[in-house]
């Protein structure tokens, strides 16, 4: 009996010293769990997070200032570096913004080609995010499966534009060249092989008891709070709001395609994972529709003042030489105007707010970066959760440092 008393006394004592002892934990700026450079200073009681303070801006590169100095065609490489997991979407979002400003009439074929490339980019983006959620729960296998497929998507980019990560794909008005025969071959092979690998990946995680236990209830946010924080993209849809720019304000002929917008209910890590999984399937469906109905026609719009002429014409054709010179020197007349255009990026509504005063560069260009806007909800989502849940929440929000800091 006395031993038991002693024990409970000890126990009581130890509770007094450990409970309520608050320690500070630096998650980042460089930390294997953050997948990018941003800092979270967590106040923790044991494993439980009491509060979190964020510091961002470690890779701020002044894109908006840079854009005020560059001609329009030189801004495309800047957009690459926003969400570098899905650069083609950023590139084409910018091209479409400029086309809206100059009133370019883009052929249907360009729209369909763009849709194919943008949906490939969405698949690549979601694959990275979802496989990394797996890695953060301790399941590395799925990651190795799908990274091979992501590599194939990068090879497809390479066929179109020669680059892999920061693609700078396309031009204002369309593409620099038509899809090559190798692209067709590789895309067909990808469409055939990818679903099998993807299903295998899906089987590993989606109904895996351990994975579900780890992710269900981790970092939840309600639909109302998500809207209040201006969430967009898969993170908003996981909370149950079916807002998708592709459906609400179709661009690049998205209204031609038949696809569904998956939504979750709880807004937790598992729902975000599942929404992205389904979006990959829908993206595949869109690519198949676009590829099978690829219209004949030109791969570029008729906008000689913005679209670089073919090199052989530059040497032999007076007009082409003039346009070439004007574009390279940034002397193209730009209409005065103000335009907001948004596309459904990998992480949500990627918006371009462009003010032109007729000068060679934008007077003002603001990027609506979905990451930057929804990442501010992170402390609210992880307060009261465990540190391991915070890591999962971070990877399932898909915070990309490039987009966060611009």
């Amino acid at each position: 009996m006395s031993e038991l008393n002693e024990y409970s006394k000890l126990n009581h004592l130890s509770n007094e010293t450990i409970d309520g002892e608050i320690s500070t934990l630096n998650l980042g700026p460089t930390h294997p769990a953050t997948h990018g450079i941003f800092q979270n200073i967590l106040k923790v009681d044991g494993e439980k997070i009491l509060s979190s303070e964020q510091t961002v801006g470690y890779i701020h590169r002044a894109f908006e200032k840079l854009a005020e100095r560059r001609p329009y065609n030189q801004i495309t490489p800047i957009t690459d570096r926003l969400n570098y997991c899905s650069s083609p979407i950023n590139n084409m979002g910018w091209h479409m913004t400029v086309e809206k400003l100059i009133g370019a009439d883009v052929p249907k074929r360009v729209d369909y080609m763009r849709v194919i490339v943008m949906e490939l980019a969405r698949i690549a983006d979601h694959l990275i995010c979802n496989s990394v959620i797996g890695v953060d729960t301790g399941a590395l296998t799925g990651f190795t499966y799908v990274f091979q497929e992501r590599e194939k998507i990068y090879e497809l980019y390479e066929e179109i534009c020669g680059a892999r990560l920061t693609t700078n794909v396309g031009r204002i008005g369309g593409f620099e060249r038509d899809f090559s025969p190798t692209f067709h071959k590789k895309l067909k092979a990808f469409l055939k092989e990818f679903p099998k690998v993807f299903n295998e990946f899906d089987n590993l995680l989606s109904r895996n008891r351990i994975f579900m236990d780890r992710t269900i209830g981790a970092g939840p946010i309600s639909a109302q709070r998500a809207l209040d924080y201006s969430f967009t993209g898969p993170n908003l849809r996981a909370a149950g709001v079916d807002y998708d720019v592709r459906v609400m304000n179709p661009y690049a002929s998205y209204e031609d395609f038949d696809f569904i917008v998956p939504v979750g209910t709880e807004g937790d890590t598992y729902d975000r994972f599942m929404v992205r999984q389904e979006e990959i399937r829908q993206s595949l469906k869109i690519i198949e529709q676009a590829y099978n109905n690829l219209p004949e026609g030109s791969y570029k719009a008729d906008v000689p003042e913005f679209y670089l002429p073919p090199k052989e014409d530059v040497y032999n054709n007076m007009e082409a030489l003039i346009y070439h010179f004007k574009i390279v020197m940034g002397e193209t007349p730009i209409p005065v105007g103000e335009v907001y255009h948004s596309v459904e990026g990998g992480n949500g509504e990627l918006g371009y707010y462009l003010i032109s005063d007729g000068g060679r560069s934008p007077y003002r260009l603001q990027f609506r970066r979905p990451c930057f806007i929804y990442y501010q909800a992170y402390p609210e989502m992880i307060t009261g959760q465990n540190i391991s849940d915070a890591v999962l929440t971070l990877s399932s929000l898909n915070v990309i440092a490039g987009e966060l800091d611009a």
Partner: protein
Amino acid sequence: MSSKLSNETVLSQLTAKFGSVILDSSEPHGLLTIEIQPSALIEVVKWIKTEPSLNIAFLTNIAGVHYPDVLDREFAVVYHLHSLVNNFRVRIKCFLAENNLVIESLTSIYSGANWMERETFDFYGIQFNGHPNLVRILNEDSMDYFPMRKQYHLEDETREDKDDRFFGR
């Protein structure tokens, strides 16, 4: 999906409700743009959010703009708002004078306005009245100027080794 509201109906509703507060309106590329008195910002944003026929309850973004040559209207704060229910977008502009760069903060209406306003403050120095934590966000804390203002050039103008003035730069 087309919008259930038209620019004309929204504008007439706004004019009927606020009248002289609305200083200007236009439709660049089909997007209803209204300029309002900065002092009425909170009132207007709150009303279009709660008015059932409008339901413009989603803050898309906030952008600062600098017009150094326009006297007493040197700075603009541009808000894009979106009604997800009616699929209707509206752009609200407030112009501020350089000697009185203060506007009400939207953080009481939208939590997401927090970082957007911090970013605008960081780059343009616009003060948001009522903001809970108005400090720099992307730039270094010790920075003593607001880099997106037009008087700060991207490159050092005094450099002589990069003379390419013939090419329009």
